[in-house]
């Protein structure tokens, strides 16, 4: 037992408890990964977990997780408390919702909130958000025109009361989703991981002999807020603007930002942003805040722990009804397409004030087509094939292009930023679905030229095995608007979508790859940083030898000549660069 003999010990204990809370939520997240059923949670790590004080302020968050989930959850718990005040909650209660406007922006994300009790008193809450594999409706593509088409909606309601699961709700869920076992299993896992967090919290409170989290919570929030504000105050005050144009579903979208640095924080106003799309790529304000705050925090205060205090100084506003603040019941299923661009938008503002600059734009939006086949799902079959005989399947492949070059470092190739999810092995996909990958390789020359080169995209060719046609929910960004470089760096290569046969295919929407044809995806590269003619010629040569760049591009874009032995021709290089 720890006696609190003096102020010095108390101060040390506060510090230790802060570390402990971060470990407790990591255990909560690991319990989720261990007990979850769906691959999106287990393989790709598409989840978040956190502990909250009595007022719904997030005190700690598991490192595991995507920003879209974490920061949406940070803001979302207070909506639960508005509907179900803490004073009415009982031990064994769990509350649930997938309301896009209150949590993380589409129906596929389920959030479960659980009160924690210590000696009969409610002392805080645990929450987690996960991406379930299916929620009914059209699937996770952008084709819906209203949220009603996108699946089952669960308003904030009890998932369990005093330990008894809401069986009526679970029956409705089971009847509405394509993978009832996985989804129900995941919902149970949400409750189980919050319970594990609560148990560990109670142990901590016993060990340190504290009756509530009030003082610890205040200290965490205050210290984190102060540290964030201190970082912000090191930046010059003022308003900095940036605008990013993206492909959109059927017409281009402009994301317009005015980022204002003041003494108390950073506010990002999205006035001038395009109106919401008629298709499901719209972002709700909560999700807009999540990815905006992530973009700001990465550049301004990356080492300050993520919690209510460090997030509080970062605020957003966006005109109601724009693509970043869509109204009900506009469609939102594929909202990450737009949301994952927000860190690029924010970076463009902060590049004007951060010494040394910030990373160039990257591919940013994931290319993760839902692929399915069989029965009524495909548009055309080979002559003589009975559609009833085609194997029924559905799977998602996560793939990403290149990240932007960083000040001082090249961008990362085929790496997901800002979402941070992992890709799925070809062998794993081919073993569960009748598809064949004909190609998956770095896309030569796709990294934006620069003193530091943008990350490369990848080239993928995939089709149905044998004579299977496959249906796709396409959602591919940066085909018309490539990632821009900074400080003289070049643009990354734009994305390309084609069929091997040469038949036309659109980068967005539901389509079919015909039998014996294949889809060719060339994912976008990241932008370059700095003048390519100042890149170390040896690095250019290495890129050529590694097959990341052709010798012609080295000469044209970098002014570097490579001789027949694969060495830099310094005389010729000097001549080229002098021009």
């Amino acid at each position, binding site marked *: *037992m720890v*006696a609190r003999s003096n102020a010095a010990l108390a101060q040390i204990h506060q510090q230790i408890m802060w570390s402990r809370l971060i*470990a407790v939520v990591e255990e909560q997240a690991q319990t989720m990964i261990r007990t979850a059923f769906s691959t999106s949670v287990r393989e790709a790590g598409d989840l978040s977990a956190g502990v909250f004080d009595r007022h719904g302020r997030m005190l700690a968050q598991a490192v595991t997780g995507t920003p879209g989930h974490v920061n949406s959850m940070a803001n979302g718990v207070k909506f639960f408390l508005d509907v179900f005040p803490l004073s009415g909650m009982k031990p064994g209660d769990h509350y649930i919702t997938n309301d896009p406007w209150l949590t993380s922006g589409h129906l596929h994300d389920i959030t479960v909130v659980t009160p924690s009790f210590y000696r009969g008193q409610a002392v805080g809450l645990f929450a987690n958000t996960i991406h379930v594999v299916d929620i009914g409706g059209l699937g996770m593509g952008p084709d819906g025109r209203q949220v009603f088409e996108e699946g089952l909606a669960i308003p904030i309601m009890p998932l369990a009361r005093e330990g008894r699961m809401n069986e009526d709700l679970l029956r409705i869920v089971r009847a509405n989703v394509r993978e009832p076992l996985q989804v129900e299993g995941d919902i149970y896992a949400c409750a189980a991981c919050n319970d594990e967090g609560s148990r560990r919290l109670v142990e901590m409170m016993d060990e340190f002999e504290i009756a509530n989290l009030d003082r610890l919570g205040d200290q965490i929030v205050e210290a984190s807020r102060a540290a964030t504000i201190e970082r912000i105050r090191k930046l010059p005050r003022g308003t900095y603007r940036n605008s990013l144009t993206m492909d959109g579903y059927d017409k281009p979208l402009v994301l317009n930002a005015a980022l204002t640095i003041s003494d108390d924080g950073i506010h990002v106003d999205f006035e001038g942003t395009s109106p919401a799309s008629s298709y499901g790529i719209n972002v709700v304000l909560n999700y807009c805040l999540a990815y905006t705050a992530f973009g700001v925090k990465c550049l301004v205060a990356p080492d300050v722990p993520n919690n209510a205090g460090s997030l509080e100084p970062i605020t957003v506003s966006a005109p109601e009804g724009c693509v970043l603040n869509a109204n009900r019941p506009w469609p939102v299923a594929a909202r990450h397409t737009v949301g994952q661009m927000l860190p690029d938008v924010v970076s463009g503002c902060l590049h004007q004030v951060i010494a040394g600059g910030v990373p160039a734009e990257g591919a940013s939006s994931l290319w993760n087509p839902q692929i399915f086949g069989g029965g009524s799902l495909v548009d055309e079959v080979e002559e003589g094939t009975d559609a009833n005989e085609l194997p029924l399947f559905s799977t998602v492949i996560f793939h990403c292009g290149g990240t932007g070059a960083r000040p001082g470092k090249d961008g990362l190739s085929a790496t997901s930023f800002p979402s941070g999810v992992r890709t799925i092995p070809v062998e*794993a996909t081919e073993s569960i679905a009748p598809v064949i990958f004909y190609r998956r390789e770095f896309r030569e020359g796709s990294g934006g030229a620069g003193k530091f080169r943008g990350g490369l995209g990848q080239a993928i060719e995939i089709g149905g095995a044998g004579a299977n046609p496959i249906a796709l929910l396409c959602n591919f960004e940066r085909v018309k608007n490539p990632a821009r470089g900074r400080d003289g760096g070049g643009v990354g290569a734009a994305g390309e979508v084609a069929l091997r046969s040469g038949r036309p295919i659109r980068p967005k929407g539901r389509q079919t790859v015909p039998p014996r044809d294949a889809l060719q995806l060339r994912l976008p590269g990241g932008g370059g940083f700095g003048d390519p003619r100042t890149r170390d010629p040896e690095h250019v040569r290495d890129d050529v030898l590694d097959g990341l760049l052709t010798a012609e591009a080295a000469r044209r874009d970098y002014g570097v000549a490579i001789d027949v032995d694969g060495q830099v021709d310094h005389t010729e290089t000097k001549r080229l660069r002098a021009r």
Partner: protein
Amino acid sequence: MDQAGLARAIDELAARDIEAVAVGFLHSFTNPDHERRTGEAIVRRLPEMGVTLSSDVSPEMREYERFSTACANAYIQPLMGRYLKGLERELQQTGFVCPLLLMTSGGGITTVETAIRYPVRLIESGPAAGAIFAGCIARQHGLDQVVSFDMGGTTAKICLIDKAQPQTARLMEVARVYRFLKGSGLPLRIPVIEMVEIGAGGGSIARLDALKRIAVGPDSAGSQPCPVCYGQGGSAPTVTDADLVLGRIDPHRFSGGKIALDAAGAEHAIADRVGAPLGLSADHAALGISEMVDENMANAARVHAIESGKDARARTLIAFGGAAPLHAARVAEKLGVDRVLVPANAGVGSAVGLLRAPVAYEIVRGRLVRLSEFDAAAVNQLLSEMRAEAEAVVRRGAPTAELTEQRSSFMRYRGQGHEIAVELPVCAFTDADRTPLVQRFEAAYRRLYSRSIPGVDIEILSWVVSLRAPAEGRLAAEAVERPGKAVPLSHRAVFDPDRGEFVDTPIYWRADLVPGAQIRGPAVIAEDETSTVVSADFDARIDRFGYIELTRRES
């Protein structure tokens, strides 16, 4: 196969003076034919070339991990080959006639030929030896549930050991860009002893982070610069400096009295870098450093246990490595562990483990088998091939010993992404074994996830055969315990973390203590290489092996 393309690729290997090459084809874990023919074609043209086939070195699904493993193997093969052949030759010239055996990452001992063929299997074998050491102690003491805690100068390694078998895995990460950050390195899919390693050791540097929180590690003071108290020019306070300031280390008897420690220097560095900005005295700042590093280690152990579907509590903690005995009691308190063993030779546990490891080899093969289509004859053939392959390796190191075979498989519900390990009986299967296999899987699944899923087909992705010769020798001679209170050597002021002040504490000299000796905490048991802290919550006893056993007092 595209023969012309292959010929062109071989031309390029020849033109570029390449020493070793890795060959990786998709789905080669199911059918290695193309990889083998490619390997043969390369060796025909370039007989000196080292060739690694991904289907040989890591025959399992998931191409990225398999190819990464093959590349790592090819990368280190020329260097390791030259080194090991040279070592063997020189040992023979010096008159050694015994076989040269090497520790693998999986905790078994293997021959030089195998090590040259699969050098990737030697990676991180030093820490594996430490876990083997703890496993031997667990067996000797009849302990079913153990957590080993190996804390040295720069890192702490924690391994869960059930029934004297260190936990194993098939995946590790090396060459991390951010040293302790999962996912920042290259994956290797090989049999390994699974442990969590964090940047917490005696030399770990303490400082304040941006939020004025005490942070310890992961960077550390190596031998140069070193902890401030060594007086060798180090200026950043370390965990060892904190231990010294807290009175846990005797400045005059450290390292057998060969190094006089500079307590004043340590105190000054801690006060300066950690204490003053927080308004804490050097003593309290030192306590903060010590508490934080203990908290980090306990948290890592807890999260690691959860990741493995296990619990860290209700285990015995076995502490070794130079810094572990100083911190074991506090880490045990934080983990809810009631019993700690500090073996003799605690400072050199890994070296002892090397001498105790069995000659053993493990073969893993990917082969998809759905239980609904279970073909006993095919499975029997696969498993006996694997046994023969493992035996060929083990027999070189243990020509006559009686071998123990263990079989397991990695199974999942069809459609899932992750497999779980399921132990298999060592026997010839018949087609009637389908149902017992389903039951084995379901039992294992329920243990992990508390439920099974009716009506879903089950599939086996990979198969494991491990073969071992018995481990040799005992760890320590047994003596008879003569219970009695031990007599302290002296008393010294040692900081009491609960009371927040120095308390006059008895100091015992480990070499003076006989089996049966009893000590009531708080106390310090000193020896040449380290000191064991007996906290106020624990009592100590010397057991019949000469180990210090700490037991938490009933509160």
